[in-house]
């Protein structure tokens, strides 16, 4: 089968145009990266609802809070390294604390930003945002689910953090109605091991399951695009059924999806778990595929972790 690649930021730019048409309360803010992330397309169509604040992320977040207080639905977008990186305080005190309807959508998350190097690679945003009360945290796996999840976030009251990756990724979802915020999506049934993934690692998880099946291991794959609130019910069910879990994410292994899953299962049905992700180290410059290999963000690494867990059972 031919793998179809599509870009999450193109999908995001498209859905913003639809949302802008549908709901006049939708406004978009950018911080001098809007051509690269393509939110400038929204600005071209709706110039009076687009605000480029320059390279001033903290100001952008504060302005978004004010817009939300005055009844708007602000979408705040720049690179993940700087949102939330430059403005955690504004997100916490001005947005989450008063439970404002601000949608933070960051692009270029994770290591796959590539040659820009560690300063621009965000491996702790999911963990940070997850620790902020009231914040929804969503990490879509592909372009169609990006569209769907962003649209749902727009219609759901409260603060959201949605994290997109830079490279074009294989399309997993055919129809965008397949995903629902807060509901983990079972993509493949299996009985020996459960793989819980989010973001670009969902595709790697699917490939790992395929490889594992060739060695007689039946892997269940779940897209846990909503990291918070985590769909613990589904995850605990997978844990009960398979007896061991591998998590996979383009994030530090500390505090992200792996952390969330570990917390959920230790409280209700502890099983052995192995976390695939960046192993608490900064990244470096390189092509995104090279980085995924060097930092263990591959289907191979997921399969290896799965086999290890099964062997030690």
């Amino acid at each position, binding site marked *: 089968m031919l793998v179809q690649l599509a870009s999450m930021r193109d999908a995001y730019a498209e859905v913003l145009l639809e949302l802008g048409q549908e709901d006049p309360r939708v406004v978009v803010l*950018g911080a*001098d*990266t*809007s*051509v*690269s992330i393509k939110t*400038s397309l929204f600005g071209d169509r709706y110039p009076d609802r687009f605000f*480029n*604040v*320059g*390279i*001033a992320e*903290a*100001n952008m977040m504060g302005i978004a809070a004010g817009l939300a207080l005055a009844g708007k639905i602000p979408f705040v977008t720049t690179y993940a*390294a*700087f949102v939330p*990186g*430059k403005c955690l305080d504004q997100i916490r005190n001005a947005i989450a604390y008063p439970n404002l309807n601000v949608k933070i959508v960051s692009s270029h998350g994770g290591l796959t930003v*590539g*040659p*820009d*190097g*560690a*300063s*621009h690679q965000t491996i702790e945003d999911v963990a940070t945002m997850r620790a902020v009360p009231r914040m929804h945290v969503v990490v879509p796996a592909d372009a169609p689910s990006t569209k769907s999840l962003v649209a749902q976030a727009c219609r759901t009251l409260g603060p959201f953090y949605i994290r997109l990756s830079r490279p074009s990724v294989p399309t997993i979802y055919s129809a965008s109605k397949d995903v629902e915020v807060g509901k983990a999506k079972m993509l493949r049934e299996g009985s020996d091991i459960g793989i819980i993934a989010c973001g670009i690692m969902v595709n790697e998880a699917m490939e790992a399951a395929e490889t594992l099946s060739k060695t007689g291991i039946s892997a269940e794959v779940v897209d846990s695009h909503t990291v918070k609130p985590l769909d613990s019910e589904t995850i605990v069910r997978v844990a009960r059924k398979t007896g061991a879990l591998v998590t996979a994410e383009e994030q530090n292994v500390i505090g992200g999806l792996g952390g969330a899953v570990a917390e959920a299962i230790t409280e209700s049905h502890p099983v052995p778990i192995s976390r695939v992700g960046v192993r608490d180290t900064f990244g*470096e*410059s*390189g*092509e995104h595929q*090279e*980085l995924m290999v*060097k930092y263990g963000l591959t289907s191979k690494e997921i399969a290896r972790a799965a086999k290890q867990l099964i062997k030690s059972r």
Partner: protein
Amino acid sequence: MEEQSIPIGMLLQKAAKIRAHILEMVAEAKSGHPGGSLSAVEILVSLFFYKMRHDPKRPDWPDRDRFVLSKGHAAPVLYSTLAEAGYLPTSELKTLRKINSRLQGHPDHRVPGVEFPGGSLGIGLSAAIGMALAGKVDKKEYRVYALLGDGELDEGETWEAAMAAPKFKLDNLTAIVDRNGIQQDGLTEQIMPMEPVGYKWKAFNWHVLEVDGFDFRQVIDALEKAESMRNRPTVIIAHTIKGKGVSFMEWDPAYHGKAPDKDTVRKLVKTMLEE
């Protein structure tokens, strides 16, 4: 400063070589930021080949002058200047942005001569203040230079730092603004108007100088004036052109973060070094 003692010929030669390196490295990497690297060449050459006291053999010399590249995306101009100065082999420049290389997309301490990992804009002037304060505490003679982008001035932290340096009477600190009029999304005056930029710094109690950032005599004269100023930090607003030296890049915001292809660069470099 005696004008005759400025070795203009040598500085011009260094600038030409550094421009060639910048183009070759970003073409080889197929990514990076040529525009804001090319606009800052004469500023770095004036510092590293004339004004600063530094020793490529002793990058950790405690008494060295320090250069902070706050607009870290201009890493190609910093790496090639450091290479021309002898901090690293020029042959290493082609490893820019490649996996396992020291030459990270944004400045990294693995490279000798790099003082600060600028990358996230807005932090460098604060770090430079810290270095300058430490110099005062230790009664050292060293000076600290920080190069900022004009788009970078959008960051609130820049102005927090701008308030702090005069308070601490940091006459050992010189900030330089690369006033090339362009940031990432377009012209600074459209994205976030910065004029009157000199007056802003004046209002924050800085000693303000404005120069043509490609004129060695003007840049060096300003650096000397900054050094003789007592009790106040100096900011030099260096008027430049983004993409300077490559006609199709000059003034084109697209070349903020886009690499020209290798063939084009080969031709450009040939004419550049012949001149």
